[in-house]
């Protein structure tokens, strides 16, 4: 069966929008956030119009219904990531909060001065700064896996780093800048061989293909709903139950307690110990809808479409004179980064925006990677399963306009 691209695009009304300048939009900023299909937006409405109540604490009709849908979402998300139990699925605001949760609730308790945390040079700021804050608080040392020129991680150097007193490795599944798909199965087993725990930042991974935390033996895995057709303000931390059990709580408040005394309190069971306050209830429930939508299309089909479009883009952009594509990793997700001679990415992005083309320009939250590339900023095009090769053609054509305006 052919990939039903037209039907799929119809699921996203925004893809037919025009920009202020009247140009039909080409949305190539999916690594920043994905668009949302109508089923997800409809599910938000249905939640608020038919179910809305606070969860867990009420025994009236709506509270029961909201709680059942909310915990049903947890079960569905647990199944989606291959978690053995819904207890190990913690709801957060997004990848960033998930990583901070581990840094604070696990790192502050179990890491001490001199212990090492291994990151990589291609991490998003959200997988760097929490560890720097931990380092400041506890004296932990940070080490970075360097990158080869093709944009892949230097696994030899990684092995060497693992000789040190490494207690945790925290790396990205897929680079949000270069699109590099890292060999996480190998990275995880090397970490475990060295006796280290591992966190996988799958913000850019899981939107493109399911992850099985049990098969991978990941200790922690973080992702955001908004990059996979879900709502803003919702994300997940998966953690092995045995690890979560012994961790300190993260934030304090309603929901995460067992008993509250004047002097001290005791903590609720998993996963609630880590979920203080009223959660993003609608967020959880419609993230389940988003996952079901993606599964309905099929992750194989999604991967193939993204792969085909990205591949096409790599080839097309390689032919643009004066354009440098960064990296050429063995496996690439739906993102690519480039620069053009004599042009700053901002100007590129601004000009092609007038033709309706949305890409991102800047450090894309990867300043250390920019240092490594020797560029203060890059232009990034990132694709999802609703993008097409025709859109890539429009991107490429728009770069001519840029050159024309800049008399290049």
């Amino acid at each position, binding site marked *: 069966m052919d990939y039903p691209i037209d039907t799929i695009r119809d699921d996203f009304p925004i893809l037919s929008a025009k920009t*202020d*300048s009247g140009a039909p939009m080409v949305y190539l900023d999916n690594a920043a956030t994905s668009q949302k299909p109508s089923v997800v937006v409809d599910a938000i409405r249905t939640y608020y119009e038919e179910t809305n109540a606070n969860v867990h604490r009420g025994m009236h009709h709506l509270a029961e219904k909201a709680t059942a849908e909310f915990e049903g979402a947890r079960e569905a998300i647990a199944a989606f990531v291959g978690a053995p139990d819904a207890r190990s699925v913690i709801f957060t605001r997004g990848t960033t909060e998930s990583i901070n949760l581990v840094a604070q609730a696990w790192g502050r308790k179990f890491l001490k001065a001199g212990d090492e945390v291994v990151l990589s040079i291609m991490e998003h700021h959200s997988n760097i700064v929490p560890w720097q804050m931990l380092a400041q608080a506890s004296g932990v040392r940070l080490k970075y896996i360097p990158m080869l020129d093709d944009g892949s991680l230097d696994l030899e150097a990684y092995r060497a780093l693992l000789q040190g007193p490494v207690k945790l490795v925290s790396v990205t599944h897929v680079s949000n800048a270069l699109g590099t798909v890292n060999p996480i199965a190998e990275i995880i087993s090397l970490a475990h061989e060295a006796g280290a725990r591992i966190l996988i930042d799958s913000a850019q991974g899981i939107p493109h293909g399911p992850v099985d935390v049990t098969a991978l033996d990941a200790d922690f895995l973080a992702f955001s709903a908004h990059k996979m057709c879900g709502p803003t303000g919702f994300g997940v931390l998966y953690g092995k139950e045995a690890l979560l059990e012994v961790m300190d709580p993260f934030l304090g408040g309603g929901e995460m307690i067992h008993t509250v005394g004047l002097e001290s309190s005791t903590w609720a069971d998993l996963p609630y110990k880590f979920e203080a306050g009223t959660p993003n209830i609608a967020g959880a429930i419609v993230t389940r809808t988003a996952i079901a939508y993606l599964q309905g299309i099929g992750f194989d089909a999604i991967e193939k479409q993204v792969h085909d479009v990205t591949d096409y883009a790599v080839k097309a952009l390689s032919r643009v004179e004066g354009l440098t594509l960064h990296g050429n990793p063995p496996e690439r997700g739906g993102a690519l980064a480039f620069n053009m001679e*004599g*042009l*700053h*990415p*901002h*100007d590129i992005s*601004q*000009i092609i925006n*007038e033709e309706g083309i949305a890409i991102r*320009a*800047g*450090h894309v939250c990867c*300043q250390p990677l*920019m240092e490594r590339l020797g560029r*203060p*900023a890059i232009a990034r095009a990132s694709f999802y399963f609703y993008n097409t090769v025709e859109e890539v053609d429009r991107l490429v054509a728009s770069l001519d306009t840029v050159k024309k*305006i*800049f*008399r290049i």
Partner: protein
Amino acid sequence: MNLDELYQEIILAHFKRPHHARNFAEDEAFEEAFNPTCGDKTRVLGQVAGDRVSGLEHDTQGCAISIASASILCERLSGTSVEECRAQVRTLVDGLHGRRVPGYPEQDPLAALLTVKRFPMRIRCATLSWEALEKWLDRQDPA
């Protein structure tokens, strides 16, 4: 929005051949302004003798707007008084934020720079070097 307005000839000329631009050494007496949302960075320095500012130079990593802006700044303000420099900074920054309409002559490169105000996401690009200059002036005469 008309891009030709943003990328006027004079802006492009300053971008392609920025005036008074060079790479500063880390130990020079510059001041820096940085835009964390995009990573653009500009550094400014000069000399002050009496109340005269001279020899303004910049070291800018950034887009056409930020580079052209720094170039125009150095060209226009070298040789004026500290007072005048400060006034020009306020005039341009206020003009870009639409708080006041400066009376730049039509051919003035500053008039070209002012068109950036119609592109809200780029205003900071245009003000970056001016922020650095202001910081640098503050250090010269901390009155």
